[in-house]
């Protein structure tokens, strides 16, 4: 499982406002002023970095205006920013039903599902967002990331190349493109794109992971070990990086470290599965086996 990169999420939550085109807000008149006040309070709290406080305000606003697109949208985005995935997904799921033609909600739902590790559902949401609003680099990049994690490397490569056409300087897209190419066995372009990403952000976890994988395939195990170590430093929760690092140590004859990273890999895998289980239990979206 991959995690959506931090820059993506920052962009995602930059606008905690309704994007329009959906069902009008239905808050009762008597509560309207209170709802507006609560939304403003939530924005103020977000700006001061107080996410729990913002969520508390939005939760109260939801009670007053349970069908308000504005309130639900803000609640979902703040929940997502706070990595509270279950409320984010359930709220975004409701928003995509209320406002099926709003691409942003499908996009956000896709990102939330990616964060939760439900890649098949994420891909479906992101494809819907892409159909509704083509030529959006963020959507294409998220789609590429999700498709990479489902080993749909050819599709991912297509989406990521398109994203890079629209936003050539996007390091995460570049790193993800390298991952797709490595998956396809195209080691030379994978290494080239990973190196380009690392030249601009040397701690990028995906680019370091790809470098590790490429170097493993080239049997340059010591260099692979170092790259994978950097990938883990940037994203300690990555089962994939721990697994690859265990292989690198095994090839280098370091049985103890190989075993240690197998155990870390297994621990991270179980944690990811627990997150998936929580999501499955708490959400009504379609889920894979």
């Amino acid at each position: 499982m991959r995690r959506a990169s931090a820059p993506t999420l920052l962009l995602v939550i930059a606008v905690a406002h309704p994007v329009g085109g959906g069902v009008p807000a239905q808050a009762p008149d008597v509560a309207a002023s209170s709802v507006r006040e609560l939304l403003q309070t939530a924005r103020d709290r977000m700006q001061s970095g107080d996410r729990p406080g913002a969520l508390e305000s939005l939760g109260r606003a939801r009670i007053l205006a349970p069908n308000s697109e504005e309130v639900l949208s803000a609640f979902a985005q703040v929940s997502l920013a706070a990595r509270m995935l279950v409320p984010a997904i359930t709220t975004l799921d409701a928003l995509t039903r209320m406002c099926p033609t709003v691409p942003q909600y499908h996009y956000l739902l896709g990102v939330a599902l990616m964060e939760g590790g439900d890649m098949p559902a994420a891909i479906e949401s992101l494809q819907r967002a892409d159909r509704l609003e083509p030529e959006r680099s963020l959507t294409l990049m998220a789609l590429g990331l999700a498709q990479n994690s489902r080993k749909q490397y050819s599709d991912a490569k297509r989406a990521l190349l398109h994203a890079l056409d629209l936003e050539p300087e996007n390091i995460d897209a570049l790193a993800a493109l390298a991952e797709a190419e490595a998956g396809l066995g195209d080691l030379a372009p994978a290494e080239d794109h990973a190196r380009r990403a690392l030249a601009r952000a040397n701690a990028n976890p995906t680019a370091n992971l790809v470098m590790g994988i490429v170097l493993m395939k080239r049997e340059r195990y010591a260099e692979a070990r170092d790259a994978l170590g950097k990938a883990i430093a940037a994203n300690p929760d990555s089962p994939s990086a721990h697994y690859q690092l265990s292989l690198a140590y095994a090839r280098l004859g370091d049985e103890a470290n190989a075993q240690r990273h197998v155990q870390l890999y297994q621990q991270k895998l179980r944690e990811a599965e627990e997150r998936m289980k929580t999501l499955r239990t708490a959400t009504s979206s379609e889920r894979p086996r």
Partner: protein
Amino acid sequence: MRSVASLVGAAAAGAVVLAAPQAVLFRDITAEAGITFQHHAAPEKKYIVESMSGGVALFDYDRDGLLDIYFVDSLTVATAKDPTAARSALYRNLGNGKFADVTDKSGLAHPGWGMGVCTADVDGDGWEDLYVTGLGKNRLYRNNHDGTFTDIAEQAGVAGGGWSAGCGFADYDRDGRLDLFVSRYVKIDLDHLPEFGKDKTCEYRGIAVQCGPRGLQGESDFLFHNDGNGHFTEVSKQAGVSDPNGYFGLGIAWFDYNGDGWPDLYVANDSTANFLYRNNGDGTFKEVAFPAGVAVSEDGAEQGSMGVALGDYLNTGRPSVFVTNFSEEYNALYRHDGDHFTDVSFSSKTAPSSLPFVGWGTAFIDYDNDGLLDLVVVNGHVYPQLDKVRLGASAGYRQRKLLYHNRGDGTFDEVAAQYGRVMMDERVGRGLAMGDLDNDGRLDLVVNDLDGVPEVLHNELTDRGNWLLVKLTGPRGNTDAIGAVVTARAGAVAQTRVVQSGTSYISQNDMRLHFGLGSAAQVDSLDVRWPDGTTSKLTNVKVNQIIAIKR
């Protein structure tokens, strides 16, 4: 919309391009051969135990030089208390393209809730015996030399219990006697079955489906040591292959992956990491799948592994491992690189086409005798309910086969569509066995289908190369020479094959070793490394023959 007249006009003018005639590779001869077996399965597969059977074996039970076929049948929850509701079947090869159902005489009809099968001459009398796994007691059918078999599992100590799946014989301690490994799957209590669709863990894409294997308790595995007196002792714990965590064991393969002369063991586990047990040469094993690189997918995902095939597809002398997996995962090709394996599934171009399918039986098969091992996979989902929902990238419940042609450069082309209906028909494949049914030098396939009639697929490719089929006979105790490695050299090409008991998905291939030789006019040398470490060598061997080599 175009008018009918305009379409007719276009056709008359030759504007409509007709599909090119498809080459014949395999022809389905099931009906004309007289095969009427039908595997039983509950239509809705509400329980996992109703969706995993069954295996198929190709073996020569009557020593007439022709491969016979044994299909394993299973009960259902509804028929569980009536062992006769399932009828496994033995078909005797009559040698004229026909088979005779000899099940009733053989005594092999009702092994119970059958799953898999493997064969070996267990008692060293020169006649093939049969081991059948299943839910409850397994069966060891001793060949009585007269077309009948007697179940001696209880007295031999190999009846096991629980839900057994894969099996295979090998002489793991090199004492000259065949031992037996049995993988087991999930703990199942027929009186307390997990309720269909009861919670989120029993859902697939939002619809209720059978529960498991995730969320259910797995079973440990068995290793039965042959004591040499007609009795076996279960030694899995002492040997280090018991799987105390209860991973969901299915397909297995014995092979000496590190070339030290001691049989090692690969176990495909559903939804959990796979095992590679390295034989320590002292009666114990060490599990090394992770450091060897054959435990999980390249990105560290535990896959739903079902079947296993071994093959020296690069002609390096080292067998690589191919594992079939659940849909939206990929079938894994682990290339043998000497002291470890590398997942080359995507770079070999076998993975992408496998993503929509749930893979089961599989074999490395040189179907065109060009000297390069190709690959075949039979597919079929476990959830019939799947057809009621939109599928995304996945195939439906019934699925086509996959056929990969080896390009000789480490990559494969998926060519099933070139060979028409037989390969593209959507079925619910499970067990697959490979062998030369008519001794014509072309490898045939037999598939057990969960939901219906099996497929006997006769290889009729006309544009093919020369061949050699090698039948080994070892000394008493291992007359099949299970574990022997044969290398055929023709010109600059050396091909290696291993004699195996139990492989694919809970099935048994022809134990004779097939070599496709392309245009080679002879085999320059044929080297045999026998299971006891001794060697034999033949030179200047004629092609297009079945050659018997006795130790």
